[in-house]
């Protein structure tokens, strides 16, 4: 975290925060693996897995990559372009689901 971080916490508090994020990531990975073994309910399993992955990725970006403490413009520079592939994926998934329902 460079001095670009206006409201960055102190070193000791950051170290504690890193350990908490590590535990969160570890627990979410365990939950993911458990969810992956759930039989049936494919749509629900997929939604749960994507949600868990997004939370884990956000934890890494916000805390380990210090995006949480960067300026709004830098955060937008990173996050906005990454929204477009997600939007495209959502359109494709909806289109596929619609075709299955219609067919």
């Amino acid at each position, binding site marked *: *975290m*460079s*001095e*670009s*971080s*206006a409201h960055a916490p102190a*070193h000791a508090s*950051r*170290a504690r925060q*890193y*350990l908490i994020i*590590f535990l969160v*990531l*570890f627990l979410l*990975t365990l939950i*993911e*693996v458990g*969810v*992956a*073994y759930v039989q049936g309910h*494919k749509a629900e*399993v*997929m939604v749960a*897995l*994507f949600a*868990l*992955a997004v939370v*884990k*990725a956000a934890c*890494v*970006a916000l805390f*380990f*990559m*210090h995006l949480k403490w*960067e*300026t709004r*413009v*830098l955060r937008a*520079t*990173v996050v906005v*372009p*990454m929204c477009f*592939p997600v939007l*495209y*994926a959502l359109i*494709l*998934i909806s289109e*596929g689901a619609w075709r299955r329902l219609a067919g």
Partner: protein
Amino acid sequence: MQAAAAQAHGPREVVWPQDPQFGRASAGKIAMWIFLVSDGLSFAGLLLAYGILRGESLIWRHPDEPSLGIAFTAGLTFLLICSSVTMVFAYEAALEGRRSRAALFLGLTALGGVLFLLGQYSEYFGILHPGLAREGLVFGQSAYASTFYVITSFHGFHVFSGTVYILVTLGRWMRGKATPAQIELLGLFWHFVDLVWILVFTIVYLIPTGS
């Protein structure tokens, strides 16, 4: 005090002027973020193509092709998470001017990268077991096999380059030629490798193959 001592003996850290849009983020940091976004879009392209191929296929995994080992890969995921933690601690130690501690954590992070690559080699070709290639997952034989190898090896290439980047920075740090800001840039790349793996692990390994 420690930081001041470290600055006295190491290369001088450049303090960037306050910018209304980017705060004190250095040009190097903004450049690294832009690189990571473009790299992230490359992965997004690979994963979107994977999703389209898989969504349109009647049979994704043929009966003679092996399934992917979730438990083993979950172990590799845990390894990358651990290496991200050692990387943030390396950066914190560098900021505090604790040179040996920073070097130790950088070394542990590189070790995490090497172990991940060994794990990936073992998954592909087998070390104590046959490996996916010998079990019938052959590149070019099916979309399931080809997309798996392309996506995971592209990520593996990032782990390899990240590990080399860490070792080069570690060498420079030990000679007093690297700054905490350079370790922060290294950390950004390494955490990105971890972040992408979280998505690859979910999409390629965890999404159930059955209909």
